[in-house]
């Protein structure tokens, strides 16, 4: 198949073939990071702008490393230190970046749908690095790539996603991607944190962690964002750990080779115990490594997609 999109905004719009194509492409980029010289000239002369309206270290650094390994030039803009503070609109910011002749904007924004809107108003490529509660496509792709790497396939796998489903773009992107590739997804959270109608996305919902772990081939544990708005939804961190925390005791009742994932940063003793985070089932650091290859593939494909679009326009 041919990749023709100039943007990567979410997994909801992608076809099964496109998802598989991205995952295959990631495989090839992984090798680059194992070389002595961890750099290829594929995006030499291209400029990537990381535009972050929300604080983020790991996603931004991962995109920056990915862009640099493709030989692109990288500029980081943090909204709190930029003209956004002076009242510039998102579209104006995007057009100004385009006027600088940048090629790709990687954006993290607190409003759901921000990436789609930006992509509609600029001709350069946009990669969504997380928008509100909507989507975080590269995170879900790296979760899926890691699953495929560890378990050999995605179709037919039973994957449980545990944590604040209601406010999680990671959960949403994972659900879109995994169900399209034929995995059976269960979400598990306190009732208050499961959105009404989630079953319509083709997943099962439960508030019983043991049930969620019982048959699962993999469990993706989301970060509880107690610093944000979960206080109202759940009484205390300790209470959460008691009811939903992944512990060695709980894992002992699950499948022996269950894969434990977490998008990071981990709150040890809230979402999972240290024993589990550092244990043999954990692939958390593999996810970080795979994240670079996923983002290299994403940047490369959108750059190609844009050239392709321009060619057709000519």
């Amino acid at each position, binding site marked *: 198949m041919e990749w023709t999109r100039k943007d990567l905004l979410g997994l909801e719009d992608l076809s099964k073939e496109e998802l598989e194509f991205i995952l295959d492409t990631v495989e090839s980029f992984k*090798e*680059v990071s194992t070389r002595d010289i961890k750099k290829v000239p*594929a995006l030499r002369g291209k400029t990537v702008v990381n535009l972050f309206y929300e604080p983020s270290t790991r996603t931004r650094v991962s995109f920056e490393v990915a862009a640099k390994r493709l030989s692109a030039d990288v500029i980081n803009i943090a909204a709190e230190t930029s003209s956004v503070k002076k009242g510039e609109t998102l579209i104006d910011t995007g057009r100004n970046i385009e006027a600088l002749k940048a090629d790709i904007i990687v954006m993290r924004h607190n409003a759901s749908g921000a990436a789609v809107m930006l992509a509609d108003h600029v001709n350069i490529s946009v990669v969504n690095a997380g928008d509100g509660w909507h989507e975080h496509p590269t995170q879900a792709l790296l979760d899926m790539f890691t699953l495929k790497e560890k378990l050999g396939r995605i179709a037919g796998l039973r994957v449980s996603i545990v944590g604040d489903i209601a406010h999680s773009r990671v959960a949403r992107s994972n659900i879109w991607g995994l169900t399209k590739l034929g995995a059976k997804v269960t979400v598990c959270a306190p009732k208050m944190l499961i959105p009404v109608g989630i079953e319509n996305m083709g997943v099962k919902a439960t508030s019983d962690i043991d049930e969620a772990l019982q048959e699962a081939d993999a469990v993706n544990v989301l970060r509880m964002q107690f610093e944000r708005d979960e206080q109202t939804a759940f009484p205390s961190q300790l209470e959460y750990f008691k009811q939903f925390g992944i512990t060695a005791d709980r894992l002992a009742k699950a499948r022996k080779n269950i894969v434990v994932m977490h998008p990071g940063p981990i709150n040890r003793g809230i979402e999972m115990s240290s024993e589990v985070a550092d244990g043999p089932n954990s692939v958390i650091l593999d996810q970080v490594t795979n994240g670079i290859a996923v983002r290299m593939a994403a940047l490369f494909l959108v750059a190609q997609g844009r*050239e392709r679009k321009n060619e057709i326009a000519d």
Partner: protein
Amino acid sequence: MKEKAKILDKDTLNRTLTRIAHEILERNKGIENLCLVGIRSRGVYLAQRLAASIKKIEGQEVPVGTLDITLYRDDLTLIASHPVVHKTEIDFDIKDKNVVLVDDVLYTGRTVRAALDALIDLGRPRSIQLAVMVDRGHRELPIRADYAGKNIPTASNETVEVHLAEVDGKDEIVIVEKD
């Protein structure tokens, strides 16, 4: 696209490969420090066949690697049919080795230019030599083959295709004319 002429059949193609294997051994005085690297996709099969030939002659294996040059091309923006990125698989150290780069057709030289960059990023070989099945002329860069199966002068509206049993079902070399 229509097939214009068949240049080489299966037997001649295999004899040519055997000849190139001998030439490689002659030039490098045996197989010490020698390795073969095929450029995806048909160069890979040719490299494997050359390695098999060399093994028959010398009784020893030479390492064979696979190079994908998509990320090193200078025409990312011009390519009409989009290249799919594949893996580079070279599981030996090329430092101080005599590397024979293998491809099916040498044309503008741009693929070889990209392959040289890709190889040098993987280490510092002692030398890099180039073996191709067909040299069809029309170079755009100062690059030449050390070992060539056949020189086939072509017009620019013609293409040379090397067909190999591994991918195409049969061994042959044909000239095709673009419509």
